[in-house]
């Protein structure tokens, strides 16, 4: 940001001070993530930069923790990853299905009691996770679904739907309803109209809501802590246990993989957001 030539000196100083603060905040936000990368390639067992690493000595770096993550003895990560993906995928499907249908109803101007219903549907996102965890645990224990995949998937559908509802209603807010009316006047039945007209238009919103639901489930630990048995351990649970007991570099290897995964998701979400804005004609 170049300042105009006539700027007075003390505003100039203030401006540079402002830029310094911004730099510091951006650094504060992003730098902690980059500590994980180099340390996960540490050849030693300690979570500090060894002298060799500071000298960029190739011997100080190794892939042994990645090896340990994949092939280690009594390794929990394989099962955890499998469980995490199964749970997250089914929870995402459930959230997207229920959330999208509900968002269609909520965006209709005929919807009665819109405010209170919307507030209820969003509440799992607002209520502290520990309370959701306790409540859902009591329920699942009562119906015999504690320590089962089904129980955890249902719990994650509860936590994931608010994101789908929010993103899809946001996409629908700019939706031109005359196109669906045009479709019906041309003889299309409602299901056909939805599949051929509405869905392709709101798809970016649906997918980005799905991504939110996926990340929520994939990263969720509080509710799973209450619900999971030994067979339902997930990546976050393993990380939680590891961080509480002993911070090993293997956890950093897993963390690096998770950062790569979240970068991929971020890129997808950003592309979708831009596409959606273009479709709705809000492009900048």
């Amino acid at each position, binding site marked *: *940001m170049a300042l105009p030539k006539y700027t007075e000196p003390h505003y100039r100083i203030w401006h540079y001070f*402002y*830029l310094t*603060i*911004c730099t510091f*905040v*951006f650094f*504060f*936000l*992003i730098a*902690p*993530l980059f500590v994980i990368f180099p340390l996960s390639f540490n050849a030693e067992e300690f979570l*500090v930069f060894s002298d060799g690493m500071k000298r960029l000595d190739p011997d100080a770096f190794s892939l042994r923790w990645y090896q340990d993550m994949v092939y280690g003895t009594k390794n929990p990560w394989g099962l955890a990853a499998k469980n995490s993906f199964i749970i997250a995928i089914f929870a995402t499907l459930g959230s997207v299905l229920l*959330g999208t*249908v*509900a968002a269609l*109803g*909520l965006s*209709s101007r*005929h*919807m*009665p009691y819109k405010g209170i219903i*919307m*507030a209820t549907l*969003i509440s799992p996102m*607002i*209520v*502290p996770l*520990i*309370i959701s965890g*306790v*409540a*859902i645990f009591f*329920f699942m224990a*009562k119906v015999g679904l504690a320590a089962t995949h089904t129980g955890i998937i*249902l*719990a994650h559908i*509860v936590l994931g*739907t608010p994101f789908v*509802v*929010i*993103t899809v*209603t946001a996409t629908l807010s700019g939706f031109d309803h005359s196109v669906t009316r045009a479709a019906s006047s041309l003889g299309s039945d409602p299901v056909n109209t939805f599949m051929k007209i509405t869905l392709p238009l709101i798809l970016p919103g649906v997918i980005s809501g799905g991504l*939110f639901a996926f990340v929520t489930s994939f990263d969720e*630990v509080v509710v799973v802590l209450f619900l999971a048995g030994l067979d339902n351990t997930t990546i*976050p649970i393993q*990380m*939680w246990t590891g*961080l*509480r007991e002993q*911070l090993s570099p293997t*956890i*950093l290897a897993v*963390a690096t993989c998770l*950062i790569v995964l979240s*970068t991929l*998701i*971020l890129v997808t979400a*950003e592309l979708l*957001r831009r596409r959606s804005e273009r479709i709705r004609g809000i492009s900048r």
Partner: protein
Amino acid sequence: MSSETNKILTTDGIPLEESLKKAEKKNKIKAFLLVAPLLLFLIITYVFPIGDMLFRSVDDRMVTNMLPKTFKAMEKWDGKELPDEEVFEAFYFDYKKLVEEKTFGKLATQLNYEKNGFKSILKKLKRKMKKFEEGNYKEQIMGVHKRWANVEYWRALKRRTPAYTYSKYLKGVDMYENEDGKIVQVPEDRRVHKILWVRTIEVAFFVTVLCFLMAYPIAHLLATLPMKYSNLLMICVLLPFWTSLLVRTASWMILLQQQGIVNDFFVWIGLVSDDNRPEMMYNKTGTYVAMTQILLPFMVLPLYSVMKTISPSLMRAGKSLGGTPFVAFWKVYFPLTIPGIGAGCLLVFILAIGYYITPALVGGASGTLISNQIAYHMKSTLDWSFASAMGLMLLTGVLVIYWIYNKLVGVDNIKLG
């Protein structure tokens, strides 16, 4: 003209007004049917269980049903001195039945919540009871342990008589109902929960303030920079937002440890000496630093979306009308960002007040919050009704803020990403 002909009819001969009403009703039902599956699902798996928590937090029928004879005999007891033989006898038979059914352990746990030391004397009583002779149970029970002759324990027992109680809520704010039925505070050295409530609110408040102070400048920068730069910088905000909470907490654990990079840096610039590295983790500092960084994107995003809509020409107009840049900012720009500030602060405060994972990992003993206490009672002491009561007290606070948020911002205006 008569009123009959005045009405406009549709082709079916039904008045238009009626026909429209019918169509409106049909549309309403259609819209509602679309929402119904999710609403029903949430009511069954979420709203109803939270109601169940409320029931659990006041439900005390278990103890009431375990000692029916005792509580009946206690009705006449005034609670001033040790109860009569009648109560002791009734208690003996109730407890004998529980020992036979092997459910006495549950009673011991429950009574120990009420008064510490109950568990051991109940276990001792169970062992000695086998040799009891018939009659004069008062003497025999009192002979088992001297605490059985202490009226305090019998008063504690009497307090568990009602089937429904609000005592767990009182316990949550360090109060209890004493023998005279008055609500009083527990002794000063045992007021643990009040400290936690105050600390939770304090941490949530200061994290919100810190987030606001850090988010405002960068949101402003993001909103005023040309698109190609701001998109790049936006990644710095969005990448942490999408990254696993545990990963971010882990990175803070590495940074803040005593041999960690932050401490190395402090030593390097000479702020602290090498052998006197400050403890920055497992205390409040750790909680503050990690929570601020983790919640910062939730402040930046609402601020950014509001600032994006403010036209830069307004600031130019303010300056051209004679205001200094500071005056123009304070009188023109800042008031326009207040909706964003409100949304961001409420969101961060709501999220911070119920935080569990980060305080549990980096908070240590002095940095844990009310959520950690709830988890502790769910997992360790297994006092589920107390955990429910504390949870609902926290929930009430959150719902009040949520209601304000809904009034001010509207839940349908929440923006993600």
